[in-house]
């Protein structure tokens, strides 16, 4: 009898141990690596390059968080997720941060036990069609078939848009980006609809990129950003300010090349942790922001390297320029 009591007491402890989730920062530092949820492969945002390395705008933010918390941007474990797996993976603690081109909405923010820690790309839903269809505007797509990724805000926006325009349509719904693309290529659908950035990225991976055009219409607001679990304010702050550090570095003109030069600007010195206790407040090393900029670079560097006009994806800064350059990217001050 005693043994059984002991056994059940022990099992109680074991299960309770799973219950109490330690704070994410300690977890990450104890593991020595950051688990980052990314796409199953989306050029420019998170994809594997020729050298078998993950690259992209989202991947850079993963690396920046690793640089800030572990001092090494390479200590990231990438977990590729489909759209429908992503929130469960974060809720269950399988990943520490979700950077999977995820749209910030009220429902997701308030009902999933998750919190969006900022916006690293301002996007909007658009349409891509085969050039030979001769379609110039989305309103001409009456009666068309659309390829859609399952479990996304895209499905909802498309339904709303069709209702407003009063047109009938068909859908071909797929789980992975690869299947969506191949369905578009074989002609299963007339138009592929998703966030515009993704359309440009997908277009580069078509067998003949010039055979498809992205229509000018934008039918929704899609602010994409990093997501963390709700209730861990410390970790939330770290993710939010890692992104802010990259934006502020661009604003102050600090790049990975110039970060080692000493500066007289007190703003730069505060950003780099030379003065003030910013790192300590976040629970991080003093050199957290220096590591981000040195190892990953500022927002502009990351943008131009992954999706900018000199890459095959060829996206101009547009909304994603700093506020002083006509965009809406704006970081609160490092003070």
């Amino acid at each position: 009898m005693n043994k059984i009591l002991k056994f059940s007491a022990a099992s109680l402890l074991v299960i309770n141990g799973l219950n109490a989730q330690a704070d994410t920062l300690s977890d990450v530092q104890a593991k020595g690596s950051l688990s980052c949820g990314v796409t199953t492969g989306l050029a420019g945002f998170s994809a594997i390059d020729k050298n078998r390395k993950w690259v992209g705008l989202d991947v850079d933010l993963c690396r920046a968080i690793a640089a800030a918390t572990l001092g090494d941007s390479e200590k990231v474990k990438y977990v590729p997720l489909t759209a429908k797996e992503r929130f469960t993976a974060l809720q269950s603690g399988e990943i520490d941060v979700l950077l999977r081109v995820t749209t910030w909405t009220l429902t997701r923010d308030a009902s999933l036990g998750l919190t969006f820690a900022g916006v690293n790309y301002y996007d909007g839903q658009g349409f891509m069609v085969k050039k030979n269809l001769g379609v110039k505007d989305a309103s001409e797509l009456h009666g068309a078939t659309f390829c859609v990724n399952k479990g996304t805000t895209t499905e909802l926006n498309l339904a709303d848009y069709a209702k407003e325009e009063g047109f009938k349509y068909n859908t071909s719904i797929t789980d992975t980006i690869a299947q969506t693309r191949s369905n578009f290529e074989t002609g299963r659908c007339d138009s592929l609809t998703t966030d515009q950035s993704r359309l440009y990225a997908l277009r580069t991976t078509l067998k003949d990129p010039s055979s498809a055009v992205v229509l000018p219409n934008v039918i929704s607001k899609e602010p994409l950003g990093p997501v963390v679990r709700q209730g861990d304010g410390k970790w939330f702050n770290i993710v939010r300010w890692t992104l802010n550090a990259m934006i502020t570095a661009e604003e102050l003109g600090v790049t990975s090349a110039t970060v080692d030069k000493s500066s007289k600007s007190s703003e730069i010195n505060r950003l780099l942790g030379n003065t003030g206790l910013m790192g300590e407040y976040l629970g991080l090393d003093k050199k957290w922001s220096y590591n981000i900029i040195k190892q990953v670079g500022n927002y502009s560097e990351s943008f131009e390297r992954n999706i900018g006009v000199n890459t095959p994806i060829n996206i101009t800064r547009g909304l994603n320029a700093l506020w002083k350059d006509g965009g809406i990217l704006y970081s609160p001050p490092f003070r």
Partner: protein
Amino acid sequence: MFSFLYNNKIRFILFQVIAVLLVTYVAYYAVNNLNYNIERLGIRSGFGFLDIKAGFDIAEHFIAYTSESTNLGAFYVGLTNTIVVSIIGIIFASVLGLIIGVARLSNNYLISKLAETYVEIFRNIPILLQILFWYNLMLISLPLPRNSYDFFNGIFLNLRGIYLPKPIAETGFSWVIIAFLLGVFICFFVKWFFNKKHDETGVKHRTWGYYLASLLGLPLSVYLLLGSPIHFDYPALQGFNFTGGLSFSPEFLAIVAALSIYSATYISEAIRAGIESVDKGQKEAALAMGLTQRQTLKFVLLPQALRVAIPPIINQYLNLTKNSSLAAAIGYADLVGVFSGTVLNQVGQAIEIILMTMAVYLTLSLVISLGLNVVNYRMRIVGANE
């Protein structure tokens, strides 16, 4: 003091009580733990989401649904789509399985070898791969809508699906249905009448002529008399796609093809086993007793063969229904795709949604098992166990 522990009876009960307590405790703890964590993480719970507007469209639905419908509506769409695919799959798998099973027993070397090859190939490839194979094959090999294959000037096949003329009943068609029901009634009467005559005089009559006349002739003549009260809605190419008519998507066709072809292999084996299980001597004995070929088959061979074949066949129906959940892999709007796919992602309540989905499959399987038990009971050898 603990001497009662050495009493076998008490010991026997005690261990069972302990086992039950442990299981209850673990279950209670798991549920409690779940509730605690949901609360702690601030995840919404409960079934309120079922009444919220779904907001997305579903391409293929057999019941009324728009993006204005609720998530519960989407659940029903997924459920009916799953049931439709399962039923159609079961029908095709049974027919194909019967043909292959009989073909394997054929004395013709080529036919039996072909059947065997079929079984060995399709039984040994995972069903998911077969689904993806048929789907991608269809997408690659079929033409675009404007170059559709046209069969009989009204059936169109392209990579967006198959489009059939849709029969639409006009007023007066209900008389044809009434005539058919009357025909069924007449059949029963004819059967009763001739059975009685057989009992009285011992003379057997051929009855199939009466059956044919009442089941087919009667409704057909009513149909023609009323001036063919059916017209067809033909599909037509309009803009990007065919509109009108009756259409099935390539996803639907691929999943039905894969499920039928896969399950047919097992069903054919069950049928073969059933037929081979009846000893050759039984047939010879029946014929020697003066039964005709047909009577031998009907009264001696089939009842015994079916008793062996039917339980595994119904098990395959059960498997087919469960396997239909793999349709989600190619984007067919079945329960898993619509409900634990899209709805789950929009509302994020994984636990409730997965539980509901599991409950549906459990219910479907239990209903089929119940059918199996009824059949088993009726097929048992009467007298053997009494």
